[in-house]
């Protein structure tokens, strides 16, 4: 049993879960949160995560955490993955834990590792400027036997170390490269486009074995997803499980949760996209928690604890073969206009039996919508719940295009 979990990053729902589970914890985050923590009796260590110096480093943080008897570090956000890796290396006396953390923070390295281990990945390359992207696109065109006048092959570029859709751009043509790429995007990872059904897995790993696997079906990346997976993906669950365990073995994951993204292409092959080891975006754990009726955030934290017993694991995780009857999905709502003044919940939504709730708030006055970075900040989510995954898909696709803000 861990003496104290060091939660790396600020998340109220995670703190709440720890309180409810009655587990010892300390939150490490930016000094901005210190007052709130004090007022609410939250054990807290302020730390400037974006600073590395003689006085701000993992050894220093390790010292500071001694007062709390911390022995397990849990990365909540992308930016804290190395910090948690460094601390856990010390706690477990295993330098490779830190190296693995670096693996999660460099998408090119991550792909190469996957490739070496026999996972199928798309074509990828590190690029350093627009010319590099164009050269990459050109080689893809050649490989795809492009004939004059045919469309260019699609290329994605992503920063090496950002969460989810941040900085992710889809380039459909050579001219897109000129128009959409900014100098500050580079260096980054360029990869070929994989068509097909995209989904993510959330594998709760303990002692190097997957103890629970959630599959999240993406309806549209950055907009909508639902849990558990629909029937098509469910039919492939055994294969997915095998590939997942392969990934876990390959990356040497012992404890925690990994969240990779996969593509299932039409010719029925599974391709690896990328993997993270923090709390996934898109409210995925919230949906998983509802669908499987467990404390997903609590389980996320506890899985990081090597001393957790099998009994304790069983208590906190759903059975490996659970298949919920109800599907939970959500769609993130972005305004479609540049200037908005009111929120209108459509009548059809109010009458929709699958509609669960929303947390959209009307704009205060006429409001300018700021430019989107990645997929930008969504204004809230609309949640659905129902028994038919096909109907769920239909609804999520539909509401992605409904304008809630006018």
């Amino acid at each position: 049993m861990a003496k104290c979990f060091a939660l790396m990053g600020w998340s109220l729902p995670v703190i709440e879960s720890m309180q409810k589970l009655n587990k010892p914890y300390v939150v490490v985050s930016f000094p901005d949160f210190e007052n709130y923590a004090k007022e609410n009796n939250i054990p807290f260590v302020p730390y400037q995560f974006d600073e590395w110096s003689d006085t701000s480093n993992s050894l220093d943080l390790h010292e500071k955490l001694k007062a709390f008897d911390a022995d397990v570090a849990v990365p909540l956000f992308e930016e804290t993955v190395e910090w948690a890796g460094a601390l856990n290396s010390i706690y477990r006396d295993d330098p490779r834990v830190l190296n693995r953390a670096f693996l999660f923070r460099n998408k090119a390295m991550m792909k190469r590792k996957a490739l070496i281990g026999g996972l199928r990945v798309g074509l990828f390359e590190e690029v350093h400027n627009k010319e590099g992207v164009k050269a990459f696109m050109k080689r893809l065109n050649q490989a795809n036997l492009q004939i004059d006048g045919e469309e260019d092959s699609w290329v994605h570029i992503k920063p090496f170390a950002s969460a989810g859709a941040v900085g992710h751009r889809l380039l459909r043509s050579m001219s897109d490269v000129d128009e959409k790429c900014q100098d500050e995007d580079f260096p980054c990872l360029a990869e070929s486009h994989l068509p097909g059904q995209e989904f993510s897995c959330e594998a709760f790993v303990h002692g190097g074995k997957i103890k629970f696997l959630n599959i999240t079906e993406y309806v549209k990346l950055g907009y909508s997803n639902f849990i558990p997976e629909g029937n098509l993906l469910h039919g492939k669950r055994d294969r997915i499980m095998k590939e997942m365990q392969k990934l876990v073995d390959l990356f040497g994951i012992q404890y925690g949760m990994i969240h990779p993204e996969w593509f299932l292409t039409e010719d029925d092959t599974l391709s690896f996209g990328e993997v993270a080891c923090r709390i996934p975006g898109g409210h995925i754990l919230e949906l998983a928690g509802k669908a499987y009726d467990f404390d997903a955030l609590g389980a996320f934290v506890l899985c990081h604890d090597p001393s957790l017993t099998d009994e304790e694991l069983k208590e906190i995780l759903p059975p490996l073969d659970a298949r919920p009857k109800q599907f939970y999905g959500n769609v993130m709502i972005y305004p479609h206009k540049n200037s908005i003044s009111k929120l209108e919940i459509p009548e059809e939504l109010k009458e929709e039996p699958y509609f669960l709730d929303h947390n959209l708030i009307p704009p205060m006055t006429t409001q300018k919508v700021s430019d989107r970075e990645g997929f930008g900040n969504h204004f809230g989510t609309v949640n659905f719940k129902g028994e038919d995954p096909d109907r769920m898909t239909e609804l999520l696709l539909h509401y992605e295009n409904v304008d809630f803000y006018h």
Partner: protein
Amino acid sequence: MVDQTLTENNNQKLQELLNEFSEATSLTKPEKASRLMGQIDVLTDSMEGYSLIYNSIGDISEAGIFENSPWADPAKLVAALVNGTLKSGHPNSTIELLSELRLLAIAKGDYKSGKITAEEANNFIQEVIVANLEFVFNEPLEETRLIMSDHELHKVHNLFRFLSDRIHLDDVKETLAEELTLICEQRPVVTEKQRKIIALVKEKIELDPNREEDKKLLSFQRCIYRPTKNTVGKSTEQYKKLLLSLNNTELYLEAQEMSQSMLEYGLVSQYHAVLLTFLIEGNHLQTVPVCMGLTPIGETRWNEHTTYLSDIILKTVHIYNAQCIYGLAKMLENGVIAREAVRSGLSNLMSIKIHPKVEERILKSTKNPHQAVSARQYLVGALFRILGQPLGVGQGNNPTCQSARGISMWSQHAPAKLINMVQTAAVTNDLSFRFEGQEIKASEIGKGLVQNLDHNLDAVSVTLVPMLDRVYNEMMLRGSGRAEDPHKWVNPALYGQWIQIGFASAYDYFSNAIVDFDGFVKVFYAMCHPEYNGGHHLIYPNPVGIFITSSKGDMLGFHAVSLLRVEKDPTGQYRAYFLNPNNEGRQDWGQKIKPSVFGKGEKHGESSLPIHEFAARTYAFHFNDLEAESKLDNIPLEEIQKVKTLAKDSWGKSYTWLEIKKKW
């Protein structure tokens, strides 16, 4: 059955969210509250939804929705603040309605709070209801209409339906009597609002005829439910039978009593229709003027056109269409009926076939359409009312002040043109206008300002307004981009040739500022103020654009009124008397500027303000540009300064002001 499932489903969701909210610690309560409130907001669309929320209000309150908010302590709430909060939109309006539901539950004994007794809660809700009559009767004020979305209006209206269905209203008599007086004094064409209040009083409040404060409310009830002694306790059929037993003298007295009842508040009862048609059918024609409460002038017109009028009365008046009797009486008084063109126009209307779409709108605008009354009868009845009470025309809950203003103007100065327009619109569901030599046809142009017409209007307005609104909007489009307010050209084209050619606007399109406001005020005074315009009266209504300001004086938007006359009130102060098509009694435009509708020399339907206060909200009007120039130097500087200060300290804050002089 489907509704049942939907309700059950909604309830489950509510309970699920409520559960999550109760189980959350203070860390995630705000996020869960936001979801719970979102769901409650959705539920407020229906009365069933309100019932679901009400049934859980104890749990919602216990779960801590009010904690750490101004609503935490039910004993410390202020009824006067409710209106403002309800107008401020979700989530504020949602927490506010929860607070009202909690108080209702306390008042009804469905929920206990140590902080406040059932009686105190009951009193509080009564206070809230009185302060929010605009929502109770779904007649939002202009300000409210500008700031609230349709959904929010609907939600708040539902709240008050829910509350007033469940609470007694004993302590609000005085306010209701005052409200009724203010409405009735304006003699609106649409009488639904006063009838609703009177019905509400009858249903919800015990009145004692011996008590002074109850007498006024009883007199309103009498007008509708038992206008004469002979009607007491009788149905309209029984009343008709009784009339057969009356001799001529008794009939005369009955007619007198009936008309007095009508003239008191301008409200007509069903019995009145029975009596009037009885008199005509029974050939008691000399008693008809008494029955309509006519003056000798009106009586002369009746005598001149007896056959004609008898005919259109029998073809139009019905117990379910009785209110038009008042309009007809006023038509006889104001002389409209004396015009040959008007009589021909009305005769033509007797035989038209109404377009199905128009018929649909007319029946939708009628509160309880009765199959014995045709859409044509409703339409002609409404036309009587418009022609008899031109200042009673209202826009309902629609942003169509322009159209309402037009109908009122035509009714006074081009009644036959109006009748002809009604006929064309009713038969073809279309209208065409000339604008600068080109034809504009309503059916061939884009949308108007109003997307969903509120049908709480008279039958003439529902016939015309959808088209007028589109035509007006199209004219505005064609007149825009000329670096001047398009109303300069649109007003004369829409309303007619009597609109003056000169046009003054305080706002200068070119510099995007208020330019030479001093000069603007001078032209205004020279146009209408008898002391500075050579002692002249206004001849035709002047279409004036005004700024609508909040009770704090903040700029809210634009509005169209007609300036009718500028004259001394009974105390000797010069006032502007104007038509405000939004039919509001209590308005507060900030800076203590509160238009009056009654008691300051107003005719029925007029609003009024001291002239300088009216000038301080005006931004555009028409004037005779050939005559004005010679009069501009007579206007005293103090008066201009007074207007300017009021303007600058209110809507003026939203604009840049330039002091350069310009040629008017």
